[in-house]
């Protein structure tokens, strides 16, 4: 999205007028080495560095031209290095420094530290509290994967966002989706149901071509599974989200089978479909991945022997992938436990 706008947005052109700009394709030419040098972990990542190559500001994601230009402006307004900014914050904290350090930490996927700085920015600059709360909620959501934040902490920030007067239907849908995902991972599904319900209510007001439309359809799947407890309905709704001819597309077949596995529904068909993906796929690495999905489904269905056979085939296809060997050990342990 940034690349599309870099040549068309006057805001971005204005921001670039007083800096040197270097796009780096991280998969071509010198890109991988430069990306490694800067510890890039996701795309797009932006760095502002001084003439010595020292980072002055860094941020991840593209939120639109205005936000991007603000980040460049922040770098130009305070050209101290991030290291110096961290030291300065200890003695003389400001919202601008907190924001720089929060973005720095988020770019390094250190979400607890990022959230800490965003909260400090919120205290130091109450006028932009809603903006910071959005960041806090989002990075708590990402951090939840590693157990860095509890459902209750994340829910508290969601409530702050939902209480904001300008929270629109699309926001409510996104928040509901994220809360449901965290709740499922942390075994708090019952606490997420009110958010799910309100998210669907908000989604009903959106047009079909809304950017949030796909998330609304996903919420309907969650509602069928978690509220109505109607697995066949959920499966049908999930299939309806897939593109035309998905049953001939190995990646889509695997994606659907994996969803079935994660939700412990429709496993018999899921196994058939993922084995079709194995047949249709031409790349050994992909076939190995699909066999891993098939093996996991076998395990879930109680067929440890077949799970072992399939993961052994995956290892043959991709002998360098340590993960598959770990999977084999897991399936063998399950078989031993079953027999024991």
């Amino acid at each position, binding site marked *: *999205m*940034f*690349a*599309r706008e*870099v*040549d068309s947005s006057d805001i971005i052109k204005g921001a*670039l007028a*007083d*800096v*040197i*700009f*270097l*796009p*780096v*394709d*991280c*998969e*071509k030419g*010198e*890109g991988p080495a*430069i990306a490694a040098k*800067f510890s*890039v972990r*996701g*795309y*797009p*990542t*932006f*760095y*502002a*560095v*001084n*003439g*010595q*190559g020292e980072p*002055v500001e860094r941020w*991840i*994601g*593209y*939120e*639109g031209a205005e*936000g991007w230009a603000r980040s*460049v402006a922040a*770098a130009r307004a305070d*050209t101290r290095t991030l290291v110096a900014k961290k030291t300065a914050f200890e003695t003389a904290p400001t919202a601008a420094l907190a924001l720089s350090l929060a973005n720095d930490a988020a770019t390094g996927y250190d979400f607890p530290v990022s959230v800490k700085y965003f909260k400090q920015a919120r205290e130091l600059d109450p006028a932009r509290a809603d*903006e910071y709360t*959005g*960041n806090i909620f*989002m990075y708590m959501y*990402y951090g939840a994967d590693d157990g860095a934040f509890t459902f209750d902490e994340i829910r508290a920030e969601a409530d702050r*966002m939902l209480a904001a007067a*300008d929270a*629109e*239907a*699309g*926001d409510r849908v*996104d*928040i509901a989706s994220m809360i449901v995902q965290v709740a499922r991972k942390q075994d708090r599904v019952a606490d997420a149901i009110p958010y799910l319900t309100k998210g669907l209510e908000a989604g009903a007001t959106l047009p079909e071509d809304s*950017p*949030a439309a796909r998330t609304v359809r996903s919420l309907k799947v969650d509602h069928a599974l978690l509220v109505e407890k109607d697995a066949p309905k959920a499966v049908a709704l999930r299939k309806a989200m897939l593109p035309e001819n998905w049953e001939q597309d190995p990646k889509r077949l695997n994606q659907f089978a994996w969803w079935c596995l994660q939700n412990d529904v429709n496993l018999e068909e899921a196994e058939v479909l993922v084995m079709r993906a194995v047949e249709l796929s031409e790349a050994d690495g992909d076939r190995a991945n699909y066999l891993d999905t098939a093996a996991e489904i076998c395990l879930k269905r109680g067929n440890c022997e077949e799970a072992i056979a399939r993961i052994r085939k995956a290892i043959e296809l991709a002998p360098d992938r340590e993960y598959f060997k770990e999977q084999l050990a897991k399936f063998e342990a399950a078989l031993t436990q079953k027999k024991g």
Partner: protein
Amino acid sequence: MRSPLLAGALAVLILGAAAAATAADDHGTATYAEALAQAQQQNKLLVIDFYADW
């Protein structure tokens, strides 16, 4: 309003949104070393866009 933060950043981190290659001709740089030298000479910041074309 629909939060551009959530919409944009989610796309980046969850979907791995990719940016297509952008010509750097207007900015006169081709490699990192050259761009850094240019920044040093002109006493400007170097802004780097790390992207993947997928």
